[in-house]
């Protein structure tokens, strides 16, 4: 490149600096696998703290699909970036720190469908299809045997379509959409024993 068109960035050694930032072989690696060698990509997601009814905002920093940091959401009008002890340790649900200070998956977290057979002393691991199929069968069996179609109320026959033989407990951990579906399916099954944490 002739003298007159000398680039400012080159003069100022900025291009070299940039290269040094990305470490030797950055270009090659990119060509090879499109992988970033030393540049750390992070995405930010809003979530709502799952503890208590204040509804604080949390920003989760996610790298390679894994939460690496969770901090209070500064834009959130209620908590304005702060959090309490439970909120700031929320990622503990996924990860705990071992005695060397390394993050390891929370050993107690359930990650499999478990089934306990009558009289058995242990759980066995099952897959979703089997579990959903079997549960649906149990529900159907119970419902078909116990559903009251009608009841006589002071001499008059009334359609009631209910069963008292199933209990249904929803949860305040679940989202509004989830609870809506819970209610819908419970009523569809004729269930009348319905309750959740609001009473507990």
């Amino acid at each position: 490149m002739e003298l007159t068109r000398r680039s400012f960035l080159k003069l100022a050694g900025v291009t070299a600096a940039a290269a040094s930032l990305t470490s030797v072989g950055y270009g090659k690696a990119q060509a090879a696998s499109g992988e970033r060698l030393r540049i750390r990509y992070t995405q930010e997601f809003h979530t709502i703290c799952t503890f208590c009814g204040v509804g604080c905002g949390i920003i989760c920093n996610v790298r390679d699909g894994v939460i690496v940091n969770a901090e209070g959401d500064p834009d959130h009008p209620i908590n304005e970036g702060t959090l309490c002890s439970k909120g700031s340790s929320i990622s503990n649900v996924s990860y705990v720190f071992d005695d060397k200070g390394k993050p390891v998956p929370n050993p107690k977290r359930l990650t499999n469908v478990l089934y306990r057979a009558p009289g058995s002393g242990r759980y066995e691991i099952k897959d979703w299809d089997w579990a959903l199929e079997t549960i649906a069968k149990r529900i159907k069996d119970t419902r078909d045997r116990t559903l009251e179609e009608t009841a006589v109320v002071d001499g008059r026959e009334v359609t009631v379509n209910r069963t008292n033989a199933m209990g249904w407990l929803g949860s305040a951990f679940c989202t509004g959409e989830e609870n809506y579906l819970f209610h819908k399916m419970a009523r569809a099954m004729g269930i009348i024993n319905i309750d959740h944490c609001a009473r507990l």
Partner: protein
Amino acid sequence: MTNHWNDYQHSDVIMAIGGNTAENHPISMKWIEKAREQKGAKLITVDPRFNRTAAVSDLYVPLRPGTNTAYLGGLVKYILDNELYHKEYVQHYTNGTYLIEEGFDFNDIEGVFSGIEDDPARNAKKYDRTTWQYQRDENGEVKKDPTMEDPNCVLQLMRKHYERYSIANISKITGCPEETLEESYELFCTTGEPGKAGNILYAMGITQFTHGAQNVRSIAVVQLLLGNMGMAGGGVNAQRGQSNVQGATDMAILYHIIPGYMATPQQAAHPTLNDYNEKETPASGWWSNKPKYLVSLLKAFYGENATPANEFGYQWLPKLDGRDHSHIAMYKDMSEGKVEGMICWADNPAVSGPTAGAKRQYSSKLKWLVSVDLFENETASFWKPEAGANPEEIDTEVFVLPAAASYEREGNKANSGRWIQWQWKAQEAPGDCKSDLWIANELFKKLQELYREEGGTVPEQITKMHWDYDGPDGQVDIVKVCKDINGYNVKDGSLVNNFVALKYDGSTACGNWLYSGYYNNLENPPTKRRKPEKEGIGSHLEWAFAWPLNRRIVYNRASADPSGKPWNPDVPQVWWDEIEGRWKTNDVPDFNVNIPPLESAKTPFIMLPEGQGRLFSAFVNDGPFPTHYEPADSPVPNLLYPDATYNPISQRFYEDHVVETDEEKERYPYVLTTYRVVEHYQSGIMTRNMPWLNEMMPELFVEIDEELAADLGIQNGDRVAIESKRLYNNGEQQSIEAKACVTKRLSPFMINGQKKHVVGLPFHWGYMGMNTGAVANDLTPSVGDPNTTIPEFKASLCNIRRVG
């Protein structure tokens, strides 16, 4: 909450009663501190224990567990005796001027209102409410006395009702020194002055009693008298314990309602849709729209299968048999083998339910149990040796389904302030974990499939249910669920703007009218909004969506006087602009802005048929005025009403659950109250699996005052056994164990001359997880409030002794 968290900054006096806000809602202290810093607000804590909130508050009022109605009743009397109520407000915005039927009466000996009668079905009492009605003239108009002098007007009846609630009496009942009572009453009554705002915030320390609803009523009465309803910085503020307990309630995960707070059909009263509409629809007030909401809900439920011909599928909704079906009743039926299957979505009643020990045994009567949770909880593992059970003897099939954590799934969560906020998904759930939405969708699809193939009993009830939530990828598409809830026009599927658009003719479908508008467009749904506030008073109208209609403070018409002048011009909600002749607002108005102020002033409480705040309410099962009843398990007789003990209307399920005889009262001499600590959460199944929190709160402990500890020779850290009647089975007394916490923060109460000790016990522990301990709720009785059947966790009787 009638108000919301940010609004706390506008309060002049904040009373935390039956709720330990610093402990269980630490961020609320941010706004309380702000109010104290900026306008010198005062914080009063009313609680049996000198708790974390008390530690930083301006005034602490000790109170024997279960005497909140008495304390608040005393406050009402203080307000009336000293004429401290907000006269103009009471006159115009409450039913204080209404005349009640001549026959209305209260029996000072038995402590019951006129119309009391036996209720054999529940083996309790119930009320015939004919004498509780308003007097009406020939046109059916309610008779009123604007001067509020008539002996039959509500205000005068109220004076009469509360005659006995003198500070001296209240002190004898609650055990709180008279001067402290007076100081707190005086301080809170300063908010009766027009323009001042008093904020009463509470939690389960108010509701979890056999007279819980009456406690809440008392708060409402106080706030109406002092003119604190609808005001910024005022309100009746229930601080919810979980991130979406508000939402779950809105979605009616409760036996007695369907989404949007409409009653579940009863076989006796509502055989047909018409019966339902006739009986459930008031002539006036917002609820006169109820039929529109019900039909729209049925359309959302049964889609094209809901037609005028088949009452929009009304008959497919299960009808109640008139019995209680809340979780205490459910477990009783379970114990009798009537309930054979149970599904628990992230719920852990084996720890959080009353008389939990017995419940775990009843569970073995189940044929099958499904538990969906993040960690293996006590409810699912009731059959394990850890639970003291013998697996071989238990034939229950247990399915444990792994769920996704909050930040592993998306959806809306409604906080205590009714803000419906969107929770975005940050990462994929590990292993086989799935969101509850996915599980629910797949499970019901399977069920419909089964019924389509095999048929069965009334298959239509399941097959006719409108269930189309799959996205193009065959996975559940949450937006489809949102549309269902928000509501849409049936013919073209276009989203309705809000519930005003809902129709009775079946042309609209809406899963929950209260949520209508929260997702009324796909581009920028209100629930996902994140715009900074413009109003300058902390309304944050463009942040998320608040039901109803994005209203932040409900009944906000009452924040201005009849002519439309705000009581407090510094933080106006709504105000009438004389010059422009129209309303200006900082919030979504809770009234018709197209009628002149003096008109809308007649119905500021738009949800009620009478349109005015109820100092007197005939709609409560256990009396129109809050009345002091002892808890079911009480160490003393009812001081005010000799023949009364605890709430005669209350829900009692087991003959042997409550301490009745003097002999028993000697066996269980101490008052037990349960509560939470900041380091742990609810049944603890999450936090007991978080090491750092475990380090801070490693074990179950029981708080005992020093005097009692000395009497029983208990040292700090000793192992202590706690016994209650619930653990006394066929002549044998069982107990649970906890470490002693001998503390100065508890002191004995002088109750009418007798010394009574209170014992405190957190309920976070169970036998599963990283950090285990005894289940506190094994001790608590299965008795409930007559309106809500909420169990009485906060006050019962127990005995404690040193172990070894």
